[in-house]
């Protein structure tokens, strides 16, 4: 058993309203685990519970086989990186990075050396004497990451650390961070509402909805084979229907007139809302009564046109039964 973190039946209530319900999962040492879910599903609360900023109402959290439920945040070898960088505004970059080391009573020389090494890795050594207000958003997040990593925590929690950055910066920083986490051999738990980010950052992925995990698995598996319609809507890349899930590459849109036979095909009525280009292929944003989807088409469609989304019946994957799914998770 080289399980670093085990959470068993964790629940959390705010004045009797459940925020987290019966969450169980484990993480191996060195693993990168991501949790994806819509905002308000309880992801942030889960991280705050793991960091010790909130008490859990029921259940057990073990880090390295020891219960940490009753430890204060400062006593847990768990560091949380918040949505905003939360650099201490009155301290310089290097003072920020050494903050945690100082609390662990490192010698001054050691902590400066260590902090400088880490700043070098996030490519900000030249700014070590700057104050936070002099940094850009991306630089702040990198300092924040350095401040967390320099402590070599057993577990690093990341709460949508890129959500305040613009799209281009977010994508470049994502790769950089994952590389650094792997290089430093840090076990990380990453939460996001962005499915691309979730898939890219995680070795394993959990889908969260209404305070509970609805699916856990390898990113590819989860994306192409969602276990329920909720999961399909949150993470699945394709058409999420009541009776099953159709991966995106099997779905095409055709004008209304070309209705195929009902026996071999599944189809849904929709309407083209916009025309766009993705991966150099013209794509159509089609809305239907369950949501909207970006699909390719055999022929040119126009905005405002009524269309049919269709796929072969054999390409549709049925959702797994709940109990079957949970057997796979445990």
């Amino acid at each position, binding site marked *: 058993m080289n399980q670093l973190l085990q959470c068993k039946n964790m629940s959390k209530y705010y004045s009797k309203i459940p925020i987290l319900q019966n969450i169980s999962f484990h993480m191996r040492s060195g693993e990168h685990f991501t949790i994806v879910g819509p905002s308000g599903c309880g992801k*942030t609360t889960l991280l*705050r519970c793991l960091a*010790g*900023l*909130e*008490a859990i109402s029921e259940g057990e959290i073990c880090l390295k086989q020891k219960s940490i439920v009753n430890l*204060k*945040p400062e006593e847990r070898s768990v560091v949380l990186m918040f949505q905003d960088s939360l650099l201490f505004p009155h301290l310089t970059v290097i003072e920020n990075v050494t903050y945690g080391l100082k609390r662990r009573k490192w010698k001054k020389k050691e902590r400066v050396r260590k902090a400088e090494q880490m700043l070098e890795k996030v490519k900000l050594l030249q700014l070590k004497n700057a104050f936070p207000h002099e940094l850009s958003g991306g630089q702040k997040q990198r300092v924040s990451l350095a401040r967390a990593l320099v402590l070599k925590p057993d577990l690093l929690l990341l709460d949508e650390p890129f959500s305040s950055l613009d799209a281009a910066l977010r994508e470049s920083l994502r790769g950089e961070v994952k590389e650094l986490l792997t290089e430093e051999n840090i076990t990380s738990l990453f939460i996001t509402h962005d499915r691309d980010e979730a898939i890219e950052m995680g070795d394993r992925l959990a889908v969260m909805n209404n305070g509970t995990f609805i699916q856990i698995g390898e990113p590819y598996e989860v994306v192409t084979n969602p276990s329920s319609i909720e999961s399909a809507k949150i993470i699945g890349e394709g058409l999420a229907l009541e009776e099953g899930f159709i991966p995106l590459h099997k779905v095409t849109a055709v004008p209304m007139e070309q209705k195929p036979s009902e026996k071999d095909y599944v189809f849904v009525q929709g309407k083209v809302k916009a025309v766009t280009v993705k991966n150099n292929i013209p794509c159509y944003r089609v809305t239907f009564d369950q949501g909207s989807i970006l699909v390719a088409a055999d022929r040119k469609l126009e905005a405002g046109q009524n269309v049919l989304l269709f796929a072969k019946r054999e390409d549709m994957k049925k959702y797994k039964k709940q109990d079957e799914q949970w057997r796979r998770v445990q």
Partner: protein
Amino acid sequence: MNGQSGFLNNKKRVITHLLPALAVTMLLVGYGLWSAIAQSFQTIEGEWTFASYVQLFNSHTFFHSLKLTFRVAILSTLLALMIGLIMTRMLYQFFKNSSSKILVWIPILIPHFVAGYLVYLFFSQSGLFSSLFYQLGLLDQRSDFPILVQEEFGIGMILTYVWKEVPFVILMLLPVYYEIDHRYGEVVRTLGGNKWDAFKTVEFPWLLPVIVETSVILVAFIASAFEIPYLLGVTRPEMLPVRAYEWFYDGDWSKRPLAFSAMILPGVLALLLAMLCIGAVQQHRLRMVKGRGR
């Protein structure tokens, strides 16, 4: 996020953090008030009686004093609020950097009675304004200068309070002005409103709770303050706090009940006034707080 953390929000923590301040306040205010009220109903021998109140209500001088006290308090408060509001409106950009904000703090630095001295220095008959008018040839002798200090209407006291409280009003209002999203004013202007409309719909609703709070504080403070009337007041009619203080220290202790009741009555009056004002804006304040949350 509601800003509460589990490990912070436990009962024990709330109690241990609040208890010292609460205990000290309740001991000083609760016990002091109870003791004051009890002593106002007792004779020096410890018998319970309404005598002191009866005596006050039958006294013309008391009502003159009461009138003077509240006239000074309310006039000073209104003037200070108006001048303070105008100054804040015009200067909040200027006061944005902290070094110019020091200017507002300077008048706050000195005690009220020193401000009283300033008013005396400038506005008394032998004061600097009197000198100035004499030099300009507007006066023939110092007694031609109107009596502004130590007279019956309390002009000197009002001047002092206004001078001292305008900076206080500015300090209370400045944070509100920085909090107001001034783009709303632009919204009003683009929707066709004029400057007055913009003030009425954008600034005023934000200011109202603080204005009411400030005026309640000021009226209550001025109505019960001793220092300025002792320096700049006259004996007839006398401001109530001075009257009470003199009764309190009157040779034998027989006038002490009078001293207590003479302070309790304006206190109760100020409190009623405060409750009325606060009650009137409470609904409004709740709405603003909720609107801010959205």
